């Protein structure tokens, strides 16, 4: 080694040092994630294949091979799909209203959006059971108005489940879409108009594609929250509508079948992760950046 070679050796070392610094800075967060997330996940995976005679996929076979459990999986997916779809239809225009609003109206709308997030999901689900029961506010009002003669059965129906679920998860659809809409340059619409696009066409060709990232984020959030919801189906529909999450709870707490519970947990996780991955991929194929 000559002296002149020294800087050449040193120079490439710098990025390495930077990388170590990055690792050091990320270390606390990484350690916490590793301890609280990756390790339990690994344990869950291991538990889901644990059998008396070594690893087995028997519990997965039971889940994916029994019509009853396929129905349970479908219940979870159906709840998530309906919640996500309805939340998107309601939330998309709401995000625009929020972005267009000014001053006090905007503050009020934002408060409407954020305040419910401060209340526990259990409180909100109970609130719906109170509203929807046969002597609840909704039935009393309808009776008083003479619109119905006898109370309608609402609580413990799929309608109650979907209404409550949409209500509770709606903010998670609106917020990401609102963030994207608020950043839209109004001149893009003007440019589209001067180029000959009528308002509806300009909306479809310019605004919709540019809001796709917000829609994808909202869909991924609401879907993964709804597919794994436990409190909402338990309180609003109960036994009539078993989902993966209620099945997992029962497997651990009542039936003492930890292997089956773990396998159901993994299936639930796979569905949620696959949905997020798929929607992101679809958005990218759609040309959104």
């Amino acid at each position: 080694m000559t002296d002149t070679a020294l800087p050449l050796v040193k120079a490439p070392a710098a990025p390495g040092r930077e990388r170590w610094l990055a690792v050091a800075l990320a270390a606390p967060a990484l350690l916490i994630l590793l301890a609280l997330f990756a390790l339990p996940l690994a344990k869950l995976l291991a538990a889901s294949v644990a059998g008396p005679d070594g690893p087995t996929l028997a519990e997965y076979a039971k889940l994916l091979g029994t019509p009853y459990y396929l129905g349970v999986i479908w219940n979870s997916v159906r709840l998530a799909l309906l919640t996500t779809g309805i939340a998107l239809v309601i939330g998309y225009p709401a995000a625009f209203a929020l972005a267009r609003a000014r001053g006090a109206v905007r503050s009020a709308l934002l408060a409407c959006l954020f305040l419910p997030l401060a209340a526990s999901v259990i409180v909100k689900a109970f609130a719906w059971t109170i509203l929807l029961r046969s002597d609840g506010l909704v039935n009393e009002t309808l009776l008083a108005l003479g619109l119905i003669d006898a109370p309608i059965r609402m609580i413990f129906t799929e309608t109650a489940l979907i209404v409550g679920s949409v209500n509770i998860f709606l903010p998670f659809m609106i917020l990401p879409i609102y963030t994207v809409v608020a950043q839209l340059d109004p001149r893009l619409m003007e440019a589209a108009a001067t180029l000959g696009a009528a308002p509806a066409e300009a909306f479809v060709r310019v605004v919709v594609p540019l809001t796709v990232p917000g829609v994808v984020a909202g869909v991924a959030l609401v879907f993964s929250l709804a597919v794994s919801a436990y409190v909402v189906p338990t309180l609003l529909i109960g036994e009539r509508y078993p989902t993966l999450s209620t099945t997992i709870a029962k497997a651990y707490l009542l039936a003492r079948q930890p292997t089956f519970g773990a396998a159901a947990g993994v299936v639930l996780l796979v569905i949620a992760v696959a949905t997020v991955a798929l929607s992101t991929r679809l958005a990218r194929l759609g040309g959104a950046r």
Partner: protein
Amino acid sequence: MSQEPIDAASHLVVRQASKRYGATTVLDRVDLAIRRGELVTLLGPSGCGKTTLLRLIAGLALPDAGTVAIAGRDVTRVPPHRRNVGVVFQNYALFPHLSVAGNVAFGLTVRRRPKADIARAVDKALALVHLDHLAARPISALSGGQQQRVALARALAVEPDVLLFDEALSALDRKLREEMQGEMRRILRDINATAIFVTHDQDEALTMSDRVAVMNGGRIEQLAEPRLIYQRPASLFTLNFVGLSTRISGTVVACDGGIVQVDTKVGRLAATGRFLAGSQVVVATRPEHLRPAAGATGNAVSGRVRAVVFQGSRSLVEVGAGGETLLAELPGQEAALLAPDAEIRLAWPVSETFAFPAPEMAA
């Protein structure tokens, strides 16, 4: 109709257009007529109404009163998407989710033109702005100058009746802006476009346009060729806003045959103009008319050199005389001889001296 008939050759006619926002009058009964193939600049300070006038023409804002006609058709109440105008916006407003070609094709796609026609028109428009090699690029991969060209190509591709530019060059740095000025003028000439530029940059206005409309307080102060705007400003505002000038206030003592004699703090000056004796006026001239002179015909003022500002081939000399300031533009070697505080006598011809009514004292 009491109004004068519209010039048959006028391609764009704005008549008595007014626009108010709340208590503020942004446009005050503006008339503007532009011939086919003409490049006109709306020049003025911010808040003068130039952008609002452009938006009225594009259909992006509606006038409270008055009319807009393009190619003989009254479009006052026609929405922008049915006007066939092209707009190049200040920040370009390119569609970030589309490629360069996708942006240029947009106007033709929404017109439902056949695919082959669109491809041909896009190629042609991109070739015109020398961007044919970047057709497939995303917008985010372009420089500011390139984005500006895409915006121009996108507006050109639909073959609009009128092209409108809203401060379209102001986001570029000076050198690039000057290049684009020349290039845009060439392109617009080649396709014989009728175009309106909105700018606060007087150099841009003077170099690019056939005529300049100087705007102030919601009105057009003067609409004339760039040379006339500079050499024969119709108002004190135009004189001030376009180019440099020497301005000296005084009182008219005599008027004869379009020449007024004005008493000022630097002595008696003669100027072209018609005023009653006793009128308060401002006497003005451009810096290039002032020459160092011993005994001169015309106007002459003695003073002391206050500063010499070197500007390359020429220098700007600031001379103080009797509390007034004179600006003279002199060739570099002449100015180099001048020391600060030196005595100097400047003279200039009466034919290049103008008198304007003095502004109200309220200001």
